[in-house]
């Protein structure tokens, strides 16, 4: 492109390519965000026909509320568990799947099945499994921790919820990692092999750098999924027991639709937005170093 000067028509084509997207996005996304943020500065309860602007009152009352801090802490734990669970599992699975020779296609397709199933559906299924199957397994293996549904205890409920989320969410990153593995030039491996590099060394010095771009995509998507998660905890525990799984998504939902605190819910959502933005920026900064372009 540098070599040839662009024609006007080409410029116009490029410009036209962006128009439908920008228009749709502006109306149905940006405008909605502005309206939503606007509500966070009001005292609207979702029912009243009028509302007043109250500045940062909603934010202030959130930061003074112990339950909100608890909610944030649960959300952070949830996201950490999810990111660790999904990233490690999907990376390992991608490496494993990529290297098998027999029944590769079939195995891959089975591993992708969870991605086909919606979060609510799989939660409802696991709810039954936790209640009916886990105690039986616990009894068989003689593990007292598994004598009842893991959702029943404040100590294990969060892990049990994240487990279901990981079960469902791991498939897509695995496939993306596998796509990323295809970008690693095969001849690099061969020369490394000739130099006597171990499996781990090959992974560390060849595979990993090439996986960096896909790593970023997976990481950003998983962090966001973890912090905004709602479906799983809602369908499995509705936030309990003892608020141990009340992630911010559930808190927003309850405040908006059950507690007549709509503007407060929007303030929570805005805080969530800020957290995600900060985390993602840090993440992108970090992973943009050390990748292969």
């Amino acid at each position, binding site marked *: 492109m540098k070599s040839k000067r662009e024609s006007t028509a080409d410029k116009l084509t490029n410009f036209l390519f962006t128009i439908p997207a*920008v228009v749709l*996005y502006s109306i*149905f996304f940006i405008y909605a965000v502005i309206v939503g943020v606007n509500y966070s500065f009001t005292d609207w309860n979702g029912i009243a026909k009028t509302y007043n602007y109250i500045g940062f009152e909603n934010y202030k009352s959130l930061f003074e509320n112990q339950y909100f801090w608890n909610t944030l802490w649960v959300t952070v734990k949830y996201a950490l568990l999810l990111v660790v669970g999904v990233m490690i599992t999907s990376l390992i699975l991608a490496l494993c799947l990529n*290297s098998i020779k027999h029944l590769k296609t079939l195995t891959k397709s089975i591993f992708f099945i969870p991605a086909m*199933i919606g979060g609510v559906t799989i939660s409802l299924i696991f709810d039954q499994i936790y209640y009916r199957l886990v105690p039986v397994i616990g009894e068989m293996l003689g593990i007292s921790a598994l004598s009842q549904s893991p959702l029943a205890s404040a100590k294990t409920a969060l892990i049990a919820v994240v487990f279901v989320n990981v079960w469902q969410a791991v498939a897509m990153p695995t496939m993306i990692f596998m796509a990323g593995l295809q970008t690693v030039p*095969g001849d690099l491996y061969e020369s490394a092999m000739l130099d006597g590099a171990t499996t781990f060394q090959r992974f560390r010095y060849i595979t990993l750098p090439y996986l960096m771009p896909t790593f970023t995509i997976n990481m950003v998507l998983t962090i966001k999924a973890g912090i905004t998660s709602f479906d799983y905890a809602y369908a499995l525990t509705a936030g309990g027991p003892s608020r141990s799984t009340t992630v911010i998504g559930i808190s927003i939902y309850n405040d908006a639709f059950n507690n007549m605190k709509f503007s407060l819910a929007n303030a929570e959502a805005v805080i969530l937005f800020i957290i*995600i933005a900060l985390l993602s920026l840090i993440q992108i900064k970090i992973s943009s170093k050390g990748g292969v372009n």
Partner: protein
Amino acid sequence: MKKEGLGWRIARDIIILLGLILILAPLYIVIINTFKDLEQASKGFFLFPEQWKFDNYVELFTKNNFWTYAKNSTIISVVAIILVAVINPAISYAIARNFHKKYYKAVYFYIILGLFVPFQVIMLPLTKIMTNMNLLNITGLIILYVALSLTKGVFMFVNYIQSLPLEIEEAARIDGCNTFQVFTKIIWHLIGPMLATLVVMDVLWFWNDFMLPLLLLNKTQDYWTLPLFQYNFKTEYSFNYTMAFTAYFTCMFPVLVVYAIGQKHIIAGLTAGAVKS
């Protein structure tokens, strides 16, 4: 890539085997229980049914407008994904190749911004906008999906297109192709893997989404999609879980069939090494 350590191979096979069990066991439980009545299921949740019963399926298909919901879900998913697959690469290509220009850079960041916005912020404003525009119907939902697909799509494609080698494009331009032709004839093929990824991700989102259909399509059951119908079982048949499993499984079934037929394509699309420099 010939020899690999024995330890690694054993570990790998064990991991894969464990993974297979973890994935297949819940599905097995769901499927076998759809063929039981409650009484049988309570005897053995994960045993093979003593007697195969099809009552759940009969009830599901005769008592509900299952086919209407399936039709709605299909229309929404298919139409939305076609639009998504056209609009996302187009804008991403324009941005990726003009990133040095202010407008395109601005558009990029403008759209990427959405990546950070949790759905909860826009949930209610969006419903309000749709109500005012008289778009509380299937068309409205499709438009929304296309709009909401953009952040992820642009984020994925722009990086990807930037990583594609310029040589082929330049060769094509020397042969006299204009931007539009370069896009349709060359880029379109090169972005295959990413496009497949996006299409699969988004189709599954559209198909399984519960929240947006709930907020937009609640005027009459004639608009319902399968997830609404399925979730309704939570209240309507909360108790009868073999019946609920039947509903869950039936809603998954079309996706699984499409996947079984097209899985070669889907996974090949996701993993094929189309990027060669």
